[in-house]
């Protein structure tokens, strides 16, 4: 893969291909961040779109030179976008809504899900949706740093040193944040009822 530094340079100079490459590299991370912060997929997609459009607007003025700096910048935009979303939602008048689709899989997701869990049925999907809402709630209870560590480590696949550079912290601090984040999630989600029973089952099968 082309170096992020070079891609950044090219994107700043107006190279659309470089911008595309950056987008593909960071889309999973940003979408993952959004998906863990808001209760439904449609909102997560809207907010992800906002982040990348803001990236396009601001990339010419960006000072970050390396991957960690660029990731930190994107996650900052994401955090502000989510905060704006919740602020706006607080101001809106309360209204009754029918049970929404929330994390009901789209057609593509359904295929994805069916592919990995052929036995999954709508009951399981509903269960999964409710479970995921519990996950989102639990993740929203984490600190921003803990969330960013999880995104960096679990979704973007960065090593501890890169995440430490991204957050401006030491490696040990990142390890502690990672541990506390997972521990807190485990505490809030509860051991008996795991967040993803279907996935748990799959894991068991893989173990065997």
């Amino acid at each position, binding site marked *: 893969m082309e170096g992020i530094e070079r891609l950044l340079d090219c994107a700043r100079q107006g190279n659309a291909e470089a911008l595309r490459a950056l987008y593909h590299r960071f889309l999973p991370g940003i979408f993952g961040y959004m998906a863990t912060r808001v209760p439904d997929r449609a909102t997560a997609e809207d907010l992800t779109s906002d982040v990348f459009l803001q990236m396009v607007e601001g990339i010419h003025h960006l000072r970050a030179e390396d991957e960690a700096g660029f990731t930190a910048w994107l996650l900052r935009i994401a955090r502000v976008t989510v905060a704006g979303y919740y602020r706006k939602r607080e101001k809106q008048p309360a209204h009754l809504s029918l049970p929404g689709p929330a994390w009901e899989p789209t057609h593509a997701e359904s295929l994805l899900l069916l592919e990995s869990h052929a036995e999954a049925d709508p009951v399981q999907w509903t269960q999964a949706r409710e479970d995921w809402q519990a996950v989102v709630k639990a993740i929203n209870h984490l600190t921003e740093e803990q969330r960013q560590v999880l995104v960096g480590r679990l979704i973007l*696949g960065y090593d501890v040193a890169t995440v430490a550079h991204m957050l401006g912290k030491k490696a040990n601090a990142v390890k502690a944040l990672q*541990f506390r984040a997972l521990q807190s999630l485990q505490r809030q989600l509860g051991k008996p009822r795991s967040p993803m029973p279907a996935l748990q089952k799959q894991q068991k099968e893989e173990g065997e």
Partner: protein
Amino acid sequence: MKPLEERLNDRLEQAGWGSGRTGQHPAGFTLPVREREHDWEVDELVALARRLQQAYQLQVAPDFARRLERRMVRRYAELQLQRGSRRRSFCSLLRARPALSAVLGLCLLFCLVSTSVLALAAQVSDPTSPLYGLKRWEQQVQLQLSGSPADQATLDLQFARDRLKTLPSLADTAHARAYRRALADLDQQVHAAAAAITELPGGAQQTHLAGELARLQRDAIHVLRGLLARLALPEQLGTTNELARLGDTVPLVRQAALTLPAHPHARATISFTGLDLQPGAHLLVDGNVSEETGTLQHGQMVFVLDGNGNQHPHSLGMLNPDGTATETTAITIKGAGTSGTPGGNQNDNGNKPTVTPTPHGNKPPVTPTPHGNQPSATPTPHH
């Protein structure tokens, strides 16, 4: 045993996380049963992390990814076009209206020149330079724009220090005029600072600024005393006056008395009364240095001179061994029973000077000594 967070991280690293394999499920995730049994707490966290990572809710829908990519690239292209057109429109405006571009060019040139001149003026230290006036103006503007009396006093002190710094470079005969002007500026600035500090209300700030002023005065005295030896007599006189105003102890002549001899071949005496007179001083007659040295007698400095001259002194003074110089025009001339009033002199009783003439006339003569143009006061036989 390692702490939990270290063990958890080790397990995650062993599972292949953080190796840059984004979107891939960790390989080799399961550890040997024995180790896992001993680390069940870490196992549970690792399992949770894995479930989170694999959750389909975190996977991007390919449809959405394509749509967003198209939207983003379109927006990027629009922005590129806008940027280009902004640049182009400005250039085309300039091309279409040459007068506008000429005016803009002139404005730019004016700004450039003014900034350069102001920057140059700020560096000028020679008071005779044409840019020095501009520098003073800049400083006046700064003073007027200063927000509070304390800021004004601080600026006054800063400008006074600035003047003091320029003096050593002007302390030679070639820069006599510039030196005198810089000295006058220093005096003015020190007094402005003192006045500004006096007007401040009492308090820590006033005490601090008063301390700064005292330090400036001490520094100024030290610098000016060091310059005395390099200066010509007029600048020495000016510097001595400034030293006195800064609070330094310098010899000060209040009055001079010229006693003319009774006959032409006798010797005249000049005695000075004043403060802090120093033995070994040289006599100054009308701004010229005599080789005669004075002696202190009963608190007066006395000079004995040859008696063959015919000039009348307008000023008498002393050049002291430490380089300070002082002079006076308050001269009392004493002779054998008569008195006169040479121009500009004063006597003990009022503004009109008194001359005590010689037996041969009423004009006391002062003539140069045989060593040059240094005068000595002598009675004239006929006048």
